[in-house]
């Protein structure tokens, strides 16, 4: 049976990609953020997961307003980044695990999550930056195969936090029933509080962010007391990306503990955070 070892939760601000491209990890502005990944690197080196299931929101590279699924699952053999217009080099491609993708899709639809399935899928900065942060300095390919799960956090109506958590829990059931000895890590990307538009731009809410960070491991249901609109109010128009974190947490199951956290204001317009959680299975493996 596949083992779920842990979860990596991180902001995915495009400027982080620029900082990686320019090698600014030790720059005084960037160091407090990048240093948050040092415990993640140690943990990944110890645990050596085979597969990463990644909950993220596309920003128009693959899903635009012409066709915008609420939930979509990638089922491609390989995922490529493409020009997002930032003037940056492309992020590295990543191998997929199509077998696990289809097992997740079968399980989700059987559990009445009627997801969009994608045998071709471009991955944007919201998926590539977390991969680059987790496995830097690697020549060539990443040491994991991925399953991308995209959640619409862009065009309302958005799914509710409650539904995002339930989606994650259904993915958990799928991993548990996957006949494989693979080691699995989940990723939730985006957030935390930020607003990029309107006169309220620059909005941040450290109290709400702390509430999320404090409850995600041991009481994720607490995050479902707010509607998606409440979260826009509390965390900003784009702070709603916490939906990705909530779904990823759902995929981890019970018995989750915090390994490390980093919270840093600001990265560009964003209250940036990195959180590493692990399961009982990781402790056994360590």
């Amino acid at each position, binding site marked *: 049976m596949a083992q779920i070892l842990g979860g990596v939760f991180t902001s995915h*601000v*495009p*400027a982080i990609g620029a900082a990686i491209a320019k090698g600014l990890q030790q720059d005084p502005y960037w160091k407090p953020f990048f240093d948050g990944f040092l415990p993640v690197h140690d943990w990944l080196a110890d645990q050596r997961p085979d597969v990463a299931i990644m909950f993220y929101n596309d*920003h*128009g*590279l693959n899903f*635009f*307003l012409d066709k915008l699924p609420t939930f979509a699952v990638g089922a491609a053999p390989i995922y490529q980044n*493409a*020009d*997002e*217009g*930032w*003037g940056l080099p492309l992020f590295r491609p990543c191998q997929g695990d199509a077998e696990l993708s289809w097992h997740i899709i079968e399980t989700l639809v059987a559990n009445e999550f009627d997801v969009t399935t994608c045998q071709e899928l471009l991955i944007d900065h919201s998926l590539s930056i977390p991969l680059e942060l987790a496995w830097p300095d690697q020549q060539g390919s990443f040491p994991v195969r991925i399953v991308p799960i995209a959640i619409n956090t*862009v*065009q*309302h*109506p958005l799914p*509710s936090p409650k539904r995002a958590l339930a989606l994650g829990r259904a993915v958990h059931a799928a991993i548990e029933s996957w006949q494989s000895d693979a080691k699995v890590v989940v990723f939730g990307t985006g957030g935390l*509080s930020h*607003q*990029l*538009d*309107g*006169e*309220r*731009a*620059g*909005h*941040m*809410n*450290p*109290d*709400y962010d702390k509430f999320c960070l404090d409850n995600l491991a041991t009481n994720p249901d607490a995050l479902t007391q*707010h*509607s*998606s*609109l*409440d979260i*826009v*109010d*509390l965390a900003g*128009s*784009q702070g709603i990306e916490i939906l990705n974190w909530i779904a990823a947490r759902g995929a981890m199951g019970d018995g989750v503990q915090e390994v490390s956290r980093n919270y840093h*204001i*600001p990265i*560009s*317009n964003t*209250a940036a955070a990195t959180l590493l959680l692990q399961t009982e299975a990781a402790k056994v493996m360590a």
Partner: protein
Amino acid sequence: MTAGTATQNIHDYLAEFDDIPGTRVFTAARARKGYWLNQFAMSLMKPENRERWKADERKYLDDWPMSAEQKDAILARDYNKCLDLGGNVYFLAKVFSCDGLSFAEAVSTMTDMTFPEYRDMMLKGGRTPEGNRSIKGGY
């Protein structure tokens, strides 16, 4: 706090989307209104389109079925106006990236601050939620 559930009348729920100060939530109504504005912006992900856009902005806009108001707002880089007309910042970002502006600098133009003032606010912890959450509630 909003219920946001099936128990609440959907029309009442949607009315609450306009209660956050200085915020235009990207609702379906805005996504419909701004469809071609956002399509235009996303076309700038292609290098050949960026070159054509830079060569003659007005001419490039003439290829898109946008309203005159939307075209003027883009040419003026009036991003709040663009939001009013259905633009989404994730997509408008392709326009300001073409201009060589960072996200933070472009975003600051939507506020009542200069970029240095805005950058300073962010370094000091960002805009406080206090008094910036509800028009109706006054908090």
